[in-house]
């Protein structure tokens, strides 16, 4: 839609495991089912997985309260053992991508780019970049506004908002 360069949101994390294993944890179902959920007490179940360049997967996450969500993933690059690029969407059980009625301007295509770097035989650094792809002007503005970044987005107000909501 436009040529704006988007600064990704980034998480960097190191693991005490060899790079090949960390990569496989992201690309093999027998690993994925064991960890790919946002908190302890969730269940993850991949119902389909064709994890390669151009492939897709569909999995369900059941939250501790029983709420179930479906996630559809399109894999763009599966480059063992160093790089993984995918787009992930909220979907239904058929893998149809769901619109988000609460936030029409939240970027539709959020691209995850993961870089696996070997620091030692048993130490791997993972850099996880998250950014909207080809965002519209409105989507870009909303993404930028969502950052906990003092210059571009919601700065000190974020802490106040957290405190406020926690108290409420």
């Amino acid at each position, binding site marked *: 839609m436009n040529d704006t360069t988007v600064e990704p*949101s980034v*998480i960097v*994390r190191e*693991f*005490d*495991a060899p790079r090949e*294993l*960390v990569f496989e*944890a992201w690309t093999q179902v027998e*690993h994925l089912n*064991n*960890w*790919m*959920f*946002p*908190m*302890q007490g969730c269940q993850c179940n991949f119902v389909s997985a064709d994890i390669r360049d151009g492939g897709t997967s569909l999995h369900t996450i059941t939250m501790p309260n029983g709420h179930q969500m479906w996630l559809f993933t399109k894999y763009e690059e599966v480059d063992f053992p160093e790089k993984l690029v995918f787009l992930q969407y909220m979907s239904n059980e058929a893998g149809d991508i769901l619109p988000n009625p*609460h*936030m*029409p*301007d*939240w970027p539709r295509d959020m691209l*995850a780019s993961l870089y696996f770097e070997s620091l030692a035989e048993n130490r791997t650094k*993972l850099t*996880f970049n*998250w950014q909207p792809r080809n965002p519209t*002007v*409105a989507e870009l*503005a*909303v993404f*930028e*506004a*969502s*950052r*906990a970044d003092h210059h571009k*987005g*919601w700065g*000190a*107000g*974020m802490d*106040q*908002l*957290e405190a*406020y*909501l926690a108290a*409420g």
Partner: protein
Amino acid sequence: MAGMARISTTSDVFSAIAEPKRRVILEKLLVEQMSVTDLVDALQWTQPMVSKHLKVLKEVKLVAETKVGRFHYYRAQPDELRPIQDWIHRFEKYWGGALENLDSYLTDIKSRGDARE
């Protein structure tokens, strides 16, 4: 930036906070309720500018209005802000949490492997 498409101030909470000035107002109103005059004094913006942005925030129900005598006071509404907070933290919470689980899982595999040796 004449001619540049303006981001519409629709009835959508996310579009409403995409405008930095409206976030500044919200941040103020999260701390205490204020009148337009209070906001004009605190921010040193013109009254029409404050009123224009307040109007949008009111439309999407991020801000509520209370009338006390002749004065109108505004305050932020927490319930309408909750989905924003959820989404702001989606990336950090969701993937941060998942990476935490991945770390435990990798440690489990390793200790099981060590136990076999």
